[in-house]
């Protein structure tokens, strides 16, 4: 790693973060909607018949929530505050946006990460087995069924599962992150309650991801099975187990790590539907509520936090990688 590369990499990170803030500000500042639109629909002018001045002052206040003034000054203010870690206050709940996100984020990360890891490890196992069974009846039936299952949108799974398992058979709760009867903390009843409430959201995300991993791993295994080094290993008399594990599995799994990035993004967007359906108090639910109420500081805060985490995460990974692997002497001609 040389200094020139490091400076260039840091500069690109700063530009990317700056662009994220500016674009998120511009998208919402020039949006035709305002939180005032949302609040005004709950205001009945007849209730203010006795006090018309109160009604007009309320409307004046709500109008201040709409984007006003010089956009450049407004943008500069927003960027300055964001760079200082101040994402503003939610217009609807008057709570700091950073706090709202910090409360919701652990629940979303919990269901997304858990479902992703479960589906990944199950998917590579099943996919590898299907790859070995290529051309058989089981493989054909499984591939067709999985392809059909993959085309079903995530919200259909969510609605079906909540209808059957929660509303009809009452096996799982219909919403929330934990029961109101347990004391929050690091105790067994609370942990059991959290896992019980998270089961359906995690299960829904797992099904959708699992199908994708199985199909990808199956295709990769079939591709690797045709490689020369596998034939050579078989001819050399190496045990079948070792060939499957070290020669085929290890090589077939590599492209899937790259797909994990896409899967994480897909899970985050999927969690919006899942959290809404299961009334789970995560970022997806927060985002939907802030969009419907035109609470733009919260919307911008969610976008900025996630994008900045991705940018900084990639930077640290680059630095760690170049430190760990001397062959990756990045930036050197």
């Amino acid at each position: 790693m040389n200094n020139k590369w490091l400076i260039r990499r840091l500069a690109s990170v700063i530009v990317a973060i700056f662009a994220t803030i500016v674009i998120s500000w511009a998208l919402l500042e020039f949006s035709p909607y305002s939180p005032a639109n949302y609040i005004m629909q709950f205001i009945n002018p007849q209730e203010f018949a006795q006090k018309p001045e109160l009604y007009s002052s309320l409307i004046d206040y709500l109008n201040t929530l709409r984007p006003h003034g010089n956009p450049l000054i407004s943008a500069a203010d927003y960027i300055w505050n964001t760079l200082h870690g101040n994402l503003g206050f939610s217009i609807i709940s008057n709570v700091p946006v950073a706090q709202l996100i910090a409360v919701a984020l652990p629940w979303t990360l919990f269901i997304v990460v858990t479902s992703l890891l479960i589906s990944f490890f199950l998917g590579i196992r099943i996919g590898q087995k299907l790859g070995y069974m290529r051309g058989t009846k089981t493989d054909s039936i499984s591939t067709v069924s999985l392809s059909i299952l993959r085309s079903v949108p995530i919200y259909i799974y969510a609605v079906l599962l909540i209808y059957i398992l929660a509303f009809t058979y009452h096996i799982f709760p219909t919403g929330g992150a934990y029961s109101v009867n347990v004391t929050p903390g690091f105790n067994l009843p609370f942990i059991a309650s959290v896992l019980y409430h998270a089961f359906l959201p995690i299960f829904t995300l797992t099904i959708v991801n699992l199908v994708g991993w199985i199909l990808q791993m199956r295709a990769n295994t079939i591709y690797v099975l045709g490689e020369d080094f596998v034939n050579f290993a078989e001819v050399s008399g190496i045990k079948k187990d070792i060939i499957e594990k070290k020669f085929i599995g290890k090589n077939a799994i590599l492209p899937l790590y790259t797909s994990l990035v896409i899967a994480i993004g897909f899970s985050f967007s999927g969690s919006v539907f899942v959290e809404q359906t299961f009334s789970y108090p995560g970022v997806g639910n927060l985002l939907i509520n802030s969009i419907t109420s035109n609470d733009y500081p919260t919307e911008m805060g969610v976008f900025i936090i996630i994008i900045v985490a991705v940018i900084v995460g990639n930077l640290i990974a680059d630095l760690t990688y170049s430190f760990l692997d001397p062959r990756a002497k990045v930036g050197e001609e």
Partner: protein
Amino acid sequence: MEAYKTLLAIGYTLLLLDVFSLVIYRSSATLFPQIVVLILSTFMIVYAIIQIRNLK
């Protein structure tokens, strides 16, 4: 290998988001999911680092 670098980036991103929520808001209700994500993201990072070291 690019694949392990991707895994490393995912681990760091999840860890950063989790640390952000731990720094800004700590309560007994969110502690369990925060710790679970902390463990899983650390596992991802350590696994990726071990694999990269083995590639040498």
